[in-house]
Every structure is written in structure tokens, then in C-alpha cells.
């Protein structure tokens, strides 16, 4: 548990508003949860009024609805369809363009863009997902310079989950619901009939610096205990469980399990799970040119292993069947990711379950394979 009593502070809704304004004054582009088109979306926010006050969500396989809460909680919901990767590893990123055609052609790399980001309301599973993408995109011999530039400047205001969503299973994946590392400031929302209040902890000099600009007071022992109890409550009410023991071995010895065909009968290969997944990182590139072919550019964009083109090689695609594509996604996420990056690729956020149009449930698929594992 990470709420050290000596540094914990109490922040009111007004204090949070001051915090958001202080970040913006400090030159940050603040993005955080807001209600948009019937979901909790991550968008640019200016002040506390932009946050989803008094909302919660109802989530299950292929199902998501916003519901009114009977209080004014600002973080009384689980994660929605957006994740922070859309800001740190954006859906489209120009990589370079040419200047001058023919003999004078030169290649200009795209410079880093935009003001530094302040991510508001990052959950424990999402912090883990960011850490995983750090390993993927910055590890090895070649780091991605665009991602590195964004990450170096990013301020993170984390939120401990006090509500567990219907498809959440971060506890199974050892990723939450309380934040442990990778943030500047962290909030735990206290239950209240009145205005929202938060127990706040700071983890970095950047976090402490911004606190100097806003009003807060030391949190009391009982407030800290109440915050801790709320996070524990959410840990005990996960909507899903993943039977996570020895998952890589289980899946890799069952590559021909009949369940892959059964799930392929339901799977639409739409790629929604890969788009909402906070760790899926696959991309493709697109080249374009002006009509004379003198100015050309290359753009990287998100791609999905569910598309038939993903494995296209002269003559055809390697993974023709939906069975093979679903198997690739699930075994990569839960098994081969360990070989490649030293951890699971799943943080238990449940988005792939909620946003699957036919409600395919990754925890159910693993359970089905485990139940009939020849061993």
C-alpha cells in the first residue's frame, strides 16, 4: 500500500481545480477524463468542471453504459475506451518528409511536437501499461525518439481506483488497483455526500513543486485509513478474474486447442480489442506524395494483428484464418510478451472485454483452455 502517512495531504475539489490550472500555467497540455458521446473519454481539460462529476459506468462483455451516481464523485468510474497511448504513442505520427525532388532530394525528420502533457486521472493498470510501452518503445538498441520526447516531459496525476469495473481484473494481473510507482502525484477519492475530497501523495520533485502553488492540508489518520479501505474494497470487487498461474506455458502448449476455432466462430476480427488495449503497440507506415511526386512523406499509424493485411507477404497472408489471428493476439499478450519484454502484455483493465462487439472475454477464453488442458 502506498499512502505514507507523513506526506499524505488532503485536497478538496477546489484544490484539484487549482492543481489543474497550475499545470496549465506551467505550460502543460492537460488531458483527462470527461463525458463525451456517452462514454468517459480522455480529452483536453481545463478545470475540475470538465471532469465527469457524479457519473459511473456499467461494464460487461460487449456492454458499456454511463449511469448517474448518487454523489458528486469525480472519479467514480472505471476506465473507458480511451487509453493514454493515444497521446504518448499516437494513432498517426508523421516520421519524415522530403524536401526538393530529383537530384536535390533531402529527407527531413519530423521534429517532436506539442507542449508537454499532463495526464490526469491515470489508473494503476494504466501506469503499468505505460511502463510496458516504455519497455517496448524505448528498450533495445533503438528507442523511438517521438515517444521518448513525450515521455520525458509527461506529468502524471494518478488516481487510485475506488470503484472496480464489471470487466476489471487488475488484481489477477498484479497491476492494481492502487498505484505503486510511475506517477508524480496520486489521489484517492474519499466517500462523501458533499463536495469531493482526496487524499493526495506526492512521489517526485515535479509533483511537490506543483503542490506549492495550491492549497492543501495534512491528511488525518482517519482520512488515510478511509482512503485505504476504499481501494481495498475495489480490490475485493473485481468484475473478472484471470487464472494467471503459468499462463505462458499453458497457452504455448495449447496452440492447436479446439477452443481457438470456437472463439474464431464468434470473433469478427474487427480489431477493437487491439485499439482499446493500452499496451498493443503494432503499427504500419503509409507513404504519400504530392501529385508531381516531388514531395513525399511517411506516416506511422496504429495497426492491428486482426487485419488480413498484417502478415501479407508476396502471394498471401501468413495468418489467413481468424483462428490464427485471435490466437496470435492472445498468445502474444499473455505468453510470448514475456519472452520479448520480460512481463505480461496484459494489465487487467478489461477494455478488450467491454469493447468487443460480441463480448469475447479474454479471461473466459483462458479459463476454457485451462479447463481442458491436457497438461
Amino acid at each position, binding site marked *: 500500500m502506498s499512502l505514507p502517512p507523513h506526506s499524505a495531504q488532503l485536497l478538496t475539489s477546489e484544490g484539484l481545480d487549482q492543481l489543474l490550472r497550475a499545470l496549465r500555467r506551467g505550460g502543460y497540455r492537460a488531458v483527462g477524463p470527461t463525458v463525451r458521446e456517452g462514454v468517459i473519454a480522455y480529452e483536453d481539460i481545463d478545470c475540475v468542471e470538465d471532469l465527469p462529476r457524479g457519473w459511473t459506468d456499467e461494464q460487461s462483455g460487449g456492454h458499456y453504459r454511463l449511469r448517474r451516481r448518487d454523489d458528486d464523485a469525480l472519479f467514480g468510474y472505471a476506465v473507458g475506451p480511451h487509453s493514454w497511448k493515444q497521446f504518448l504513442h499516437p494513432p498517426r505520427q508523421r516520421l519524415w518528409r522530403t524536401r526538393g525532388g530529383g*537530384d536535390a532530394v533531402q529527407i527531413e525528420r519530423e521534429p517532436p511536437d506539442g507542449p508537454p502533457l499532463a495526464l490526469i486521472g491515470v489508473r494503476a493498470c494504466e501506469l503499468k501499461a505505460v511502463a510496458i510501452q516504455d519497455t517496448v518503445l*524505448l528498450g533495445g538498441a533503438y528507442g523511438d525518439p517521438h515517444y521518448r520526447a513525450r515521455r520525458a516531459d509527461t506529468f502524471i496525476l494518478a488516481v487510485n481506483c475506488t470503484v472496480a469495473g464489471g470487466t476489471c481484473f487488475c488484481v489477477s494481473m498484479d497491476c492494481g488497483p492502487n498505484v505503486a510507482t510511475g506517477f508524480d502525484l496520486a489521489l484517492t477519492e474519499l466517500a462523501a455526500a458533499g463536495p469531493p475530497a482526496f487524499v493526495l501523495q506526492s512521489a517526485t520533485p515535479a509533483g511537490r513543486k506543483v503542490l506549492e502553488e495550491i492549497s492543501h492540508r495534512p491528511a488525518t489518520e482517519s482520512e488515510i485509513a478511509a482512503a485505504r479501505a476504499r481501494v481495498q474494497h475495489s480490490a475485493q470487487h473485481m468484475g473478472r478474474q484471470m487464472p494467471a498461474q503459468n499462463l505462458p506455458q499453458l497457452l504455448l502448449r495449447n496452440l492447436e486447442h479446439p477452443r481457438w476455432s470456437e472463439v474464431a466462430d464468434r470473433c469478427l476480427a474487427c480489431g477493437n480489442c487491439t485499439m482499446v488495449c493500452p499496451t498493443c*503497440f503494432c503499427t504500419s507506415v503509409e507513404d504519400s506524395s504530392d501529385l508531381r511526386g516531388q514531395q513525399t512523406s511517411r506516416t506511422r499509424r496504429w495497426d492491428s494483428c486482426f487485419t488480413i493485411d498484417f502478415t501479407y507477404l508476396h*502471394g498471401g497472408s501468413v495468418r489467413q484464418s481468424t483462428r490464427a489471428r485471435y490466437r496470435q493476439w492472445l498468445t502474444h499478450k499473455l505468453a510470448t510478451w514475456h519472452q520479448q519484454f520480460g512481463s505480461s502484455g496484459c494489465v487487467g483493465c478489461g477494455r478488450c472485454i467491454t469493447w468487443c462487439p460480441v463480448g469475447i472475454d479474454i479471461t473466459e477464453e483462458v479459463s476454457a483452455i485451462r479447463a481442458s488442458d491436457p497438461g
Partner: protein
Amino acid sequence: MHARATDPMVPRVLRVRSRRRDGPQVWTLQCDDGANEPPGFAAGQFNMLTAFGVGEVPISFSGDPARPQRIVHTIRAVGAVSSALTRLGAGAALAVRGPFGTGWPMSEAAGRDVVLVAGGLGLAPLRPALYQLLAQRAGYGRITLLYGTRSPQEILFRREIDSWRKLTGVMIEVTVDHAMPPWHGHVGVVTALIPRARFDPRRTLALICGPEIMMRFAAEALGAAGVASEAIYLSLERSMKCGIGRCGHCQFGGLFICRDGPVIRYDRLREPLRVREL
């Protein structure tokens, strides 16, 4: 390894020096590297080549590693990008990123018999290894190239093959799938040539490049002839959009073919190659 300062996704400009037809729809481009210090390459590695405004594809080096300032690629025009690349004439600009991937294990070849098995365009990625072996001929045992292609018209590097045949201790056997007179050579799959090759299986290194099904059968046949899996290397091919293990396209089980390959030892491939659509 430490992170490199430059962006690995941004290419540099190359100029085509010459272009030669090497078979139906197959062209070899020789390019001059404009870099002050050409990065050099290991036999078996590949570059990501860009036809401006069209796209980028991975293409193996087919030239001599001892001449790093001259970048040579042998390309079959099969898609939009490869077709555009093969249309580039002398002086035309293209862009390159690389070299990427693993090379053939040339240091392991020292003192051993070397069997190279090529299928179709798979001869091109093996040619840098052959250049290296033949340049230090005394450093190796018997060298055998078994090369299978579709038809006599599609035999690559024909004049070079004829000159290599004349070298002592070098055996070259070519077979085709289909042939009409005046072809007097072998007809059939390349694996059928393996019993003709003379090598000591206990001190042999085998390098295989070609269609996946051909590589599987060739590796199995060499295994049956007594060559250990640890002495057999294959060069795999997958869709690639980055070359640095980051776009995800080339995954083969837990391997990124661009980074962990394209040259991979057979003992790591035997099981995954048996899984369909992996």
C-alpha cells in the same frame, strides 16, 4: 547496447549506380552510399528500401560484405514497392535504413564443410556468404551450393555460378522445377540434391534460404543426413514495417524475424515451423 542518437525510422538517400536484369522480373541494383562512413553489413542482413512516395520493403543484401561502400540488392518486382524499386535507373534516388537483423554465422564456418541450399530468389541473400567463403577459400572445408529454381530462365547470377563451378573444392548443383530442351540439368526439388553433396555431417554448417516449405524439407533432409539442428541456419521472411522489432508485423511465435532473424538457428525454428499460420 545503448540507444542510438539518430532516429532508426528515418532513412538516408542512396543513388542507383547501375541496374541489371537477372531474370524474369528480377533486377539487381548497385547503389552508392552517400554516407561518409558506410555502415557496412554482415552477410545475411537486410536493408529497408524506400521507393519515394510508394513505400518501403525489407530486401537482403546480395553484394560483397568486403565492399561496404557499394550497396547491392537483388529485387523481384512482386508488389508496388518492389516494382517501383526495380524501375529505378542509374542516377535515381532511393532511400535506405539499415543494416538490420542477424547475419549468417560465418565465424562458425571456419574449418568446416559448408552446404548452402537456395530456393529461387533465396540465392540472393546467400551470395554475400558465398563471396566471403570463396574469398578465404583455404579457411573452409568443402563448399557446396545446391540451388533450385522454377525454370532455367530464372537461374540467377548465371555467369558467376559458372565461374564458381571452376574453383577447386566447390560443388554447385542446380535443379529446376520445370524444363524444356535444351536443359540437361536436374529437374525436381532442391532437397533431392542433398544426397549428391559431399560433406562430413559432423563438421558441416548448413545455410538455407528460400520458400519456407523448401527450407523445412531441406533442414529435415540435412538432419536425416546427420547434420545437427544446431549446425543448420535458415533465413526467414515476414511482413516488416520497421526492421527494429517495433511494428509487430514479423512476429513468429516469440521471435521478431527482423531483429532475432532473419537468420535463425534451426533448433529454435523446428517446432514453430510445424504450427500452421503461426
